[in-house]
């Protein structure tokens, strides 16, 4: 349904722009013609009114038949033509004539050719070029859109077919779109023209795997990125890694962020390291987390409750061939998928100890967040109280409120010292 709608949309767009182009071209030529015709009837000297009708017909037989009777039609033209016919001797007078005449528009027909170079040369190119350029630009964009769309789709399909066997070995359900009643696999979903997703599920210790292919926006001319990104998000039931900075003996272009050092040394054993070395240019990042709650929501500052978390591994690979990936390159990434599965299996063996630690750490974080929020609320209340006091006109009531405020302030100061102590202890933990 969505696809047909899009096609319809595109077709209507093309039709409309085509019609528009044709319509306004016609309007232009008609308009010019009319302007010229009316321009002919502009003021002329009375002297020139006589005896030019016949000549006028002779000069402009096709156009001025109907206007032949109009006395003022084309007198100037006739004069000029006469003078032209008289040849070179009249060149100067011709120019004079041109000077006090309106525009080149008065002279239609064969006069226009002689005058094309003079007058206002920049008008003629502008007349339609701008519009043609616009339409051409639109056409180019549209063509690029189509081309990019097909290329992206081809890439995604190629990726899917090349990885299918591997995925089938590891997952019992590959490619679910969530809508069909029966579990049927094999659907590569299209999120947008450059994002394709694939959902796999049914494996030991893995709740599911969502593969997201983010391809370059080839369908959008404006958007030119340098690399392709292909993030994979595995959901597993174990593991922990957070903040801190350490370095390991892997290619130094890698930065390691890990909170619990044992975990990282466990993961980064020899095989993984060698793989990292080998595919250095293709691995964007590997994020292993016990509580992965999705990308940080930057619009939500006052989070007081814990966001939903799931343990997960996120791998992000770059597909090689910056910007000019061909189908063959995709097959090379099959090896990277194997790396993913390897890590998954390793993760199984690491368990509760890390989980506990991570839980604690997270609780801390959430707690401090909650405290902050509560404090903010208290600040708000205080401010409101103060405002009320200010606005209070009755002196008695004002006094009473002030007293209340001061009492509260005292209490708060005491509580604050207590809190500081507790915080200090927690931080030390």
């Amino acid at each position: 349904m969505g696809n047909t709608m899009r096609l319809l949309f595109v077709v209507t767009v093309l039709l409309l722009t085509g019609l528009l182009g044709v319509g306004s071209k016609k309007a232009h030529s008609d308009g010019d013609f009319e302007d010229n015709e009316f321009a002919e009837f502009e003021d002329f000297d009375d002297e020139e009114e006589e005896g030019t009708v016949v000549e006028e017909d002779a000069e402009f037989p096709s156009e001025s038949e109907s206007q032949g009777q109009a006395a003022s039609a084309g007198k100037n033209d006739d004069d000029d033509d006469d003078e032209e016919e008289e040849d070179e001797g009249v060149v100067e007078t011709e120019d004079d004539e041109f000077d006090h005449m309106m525009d080149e528009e008065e002279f239609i027909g064969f006069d226009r050719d002689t005058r094309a170079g003079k007058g206002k040369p920049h008008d003629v190119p502008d007349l339609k070029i701008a519009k043609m350029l616009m339409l051409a630009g639109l056409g180019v964009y549209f063509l690029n859109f189509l081309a990019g769309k097909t290329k992206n789709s081809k890439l995604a399909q190629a990726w899917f077919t090349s990885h299918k066997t591997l995925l089938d070995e590891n997952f019992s359900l590959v490619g679910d779109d969530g809508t069909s009643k029966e579990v049927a696999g094999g659907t590569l979903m299209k999120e947008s023209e450059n994002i394709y997703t694939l959902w796999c599920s049914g494996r030991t210790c893995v709740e599911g795997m969502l593969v997201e292919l983010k391809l370059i926006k080839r369908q959008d001319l404006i958007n030119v990125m340098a690399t392709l990104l292909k993030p994979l998000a595995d959901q597993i039931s174990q593991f922990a890694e957070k903040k801190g900075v350490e370095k390991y003996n892997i290619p130094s272009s890698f930065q390691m962020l890990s909170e619990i050092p044992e975990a990282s040394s466990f993961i980064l054993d020899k095989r993984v390291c060698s793989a990292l070395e080998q595919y250095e240019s293709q691995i964007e990042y590997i994020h292993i987390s016990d509580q992965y709650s999705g990308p940080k929501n930057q619009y939500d500052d006052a989070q007081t409750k814990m966001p939903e978390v799931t343990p997960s591994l996120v791998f992000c690979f770059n597909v090689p061939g910056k910007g000019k990936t061909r189908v063959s390159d995709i097959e090379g990434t099959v090896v990277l998928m194997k790396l993913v599965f390897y890590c998954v299996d390793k993760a199984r063996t690491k368990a509760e100890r890390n989980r506990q630690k991570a839980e604690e750490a997270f609780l801390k974080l959430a707690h401090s967040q909650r405290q902050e929020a509560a404090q903010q609320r208290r600040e708000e209340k205080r401010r409101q109280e103060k405002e009320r006091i200010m606005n209070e006109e009755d002196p008695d009531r004002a006094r009473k409120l002030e007293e209340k405020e001061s009492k509260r302030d005292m209490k708060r100061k005491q509580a604050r010292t207590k809190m500081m102590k507790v915080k200090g202890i927690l931080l030390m933990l």
Partner: protein
Amino acid sequence: MSSSTPFDARRPNKIHRYKPKDTNAPGDDPTPDYMNLLGMIFSMCGLMMKLKWCAWCAVYCSFISFANSRASEDTKQTLSSFMLSISAVVMSYLQNPQPMTPPWQ
């Protein structure tokens, strides 16, 4: 590497159905939304002030928005923005058949 596991790692009884991500519109690429808005603004400008180049920019913006839109978004919004920009172009040409003057002239 690890795919040569001796046992079959698949568990057909532990299948989780796909739950489509809820539309985290601000988190993702906001280009289509911006372009949509920009297109509407341009077309209104073009209509009110009869500026042809505004109307043409509006057409481009709505086209870009369409190209970047996600499949989950409905096409009605993009379509309406596009229609608006086309009408802006047509109206500005009908009212003023003179060729387009670029904004710097």
